[in-house]
């Protein structure tokens, strides 16, 4: 979404700039080098992705993920101000957010979409997002991941002295973003002060 425009603008601007400044040679090399870099990056990430995927497989199949979902149930039912019927989505919301926390994006999305559809069916006015739906969306767009596995893998591959040294700052930053998102949702919600 929006990526098509960004991609076109970047390439068009790049090519036109290269042509205007007489850098056809550099542009040609850069265009071919980009793909090579991508394949190298992907290959060096694949090993770490496989390891993290394996560990997440253990977490999911041992029931640790559903345990976290159960623990989230009570605080979440307070956080969301459900309209009539929307509570039916709570289980999927718990599954989605706990999978998000564990960095299992692929496992989180199906549950998240199901929760969204469940809540959408409860709306009297079709096509309008309720406050609970928007809060749920904002929780998903502000990321609640506890362990930034992709970034750790990337840093390890780039030769960082301690690839995991970003874990605590990331947790703080994500907490600030999520807290800010929840607060703004409260301020913007139609049922203020209740």
């Amino acid at each position, binding site marked *: 979404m929006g990526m098509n425009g960004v991609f076109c603008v970047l390439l068009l601007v790049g090519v036109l700039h290269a042509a205007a400044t007489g850098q056809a040679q550099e542009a040609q090399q*850069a265009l071919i080098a980009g793909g090579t870099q991508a394949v190298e990056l992907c290959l060096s990430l694949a090993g770490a992705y496989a390891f993290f995927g394996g560990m997440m497989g253990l977490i999911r199949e041992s029931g640790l993920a559903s345990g976290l979902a159960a623990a989230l149930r009570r605080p979440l039912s307070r956080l969301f101000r459900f309209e009539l019927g929307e509570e039916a989505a709570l289980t999927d919301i718990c599954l989605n957010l706990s999978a998000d926390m564990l960095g299992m994006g692929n496992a989180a999305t199906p549950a998240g979409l199901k929760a969204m559809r469940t809540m959408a069916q409860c709306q009297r006015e079709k096509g*309008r*997002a309720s406050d609970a739906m928007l809060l749920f969306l904002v929780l998903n767009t502000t990321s609640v991941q506890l362990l930034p596995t992709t970034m750790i893998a990337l840093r390890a591959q780039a030769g*960082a002295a301690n690839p995991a040294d970003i874990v605590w700052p990331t947790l703080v930053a994500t907490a600030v*973003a999520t807290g*800010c998102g929840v607060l703004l949702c409260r301020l*913007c919600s139609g049922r203020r002060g209740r």
Partner: protein
Amino acid sequence: MNESLLLPALLLMAILSALRARINVYDAFVRGAREGLQTAFQILPYLVAVLTAVSLLRETGLLDQMQRVCEPVFAGIGLPAESVGTILLRPLSGSAALATVNDVMQTAGADSRAARLCCVISGASETVFFTGSLYLGSAGVERSRYAIPVSLVAYAAGVFAAAAIVR
């Protein structure tokens, strides 16, 4: 606490709970690893697209010029110039942000402030536009009200928090 203990500790917890649940640890790991590999190769075409564009902009000097233009603005709010690409692309595309973070680490060094900041920003946020359109679209929402503005302001708050912590 030493961060390098986090991963082994998490793995230990995962193995112990898998043993307690009496599941086949090896099979579960392999199934998960297969999913991880699929993810890695699923993002490859996107990485090619974005890295090609980024490579073009960098090699022809346009990225440097963009950074020079943005530098005073970014410096004024405490952000290193190298982080311009990551900060602007992160809400649009995860793989684009990933590519720019990798770029910063290769050029400025993995342990530089800019690289660590970009890693923190990327790890602490989501692709707002993609997630938003996916979730709202699949639920048939036409009036998304304050969803995207709130998400973007929250993202900006996260960026500033990251800049304040990463020194």
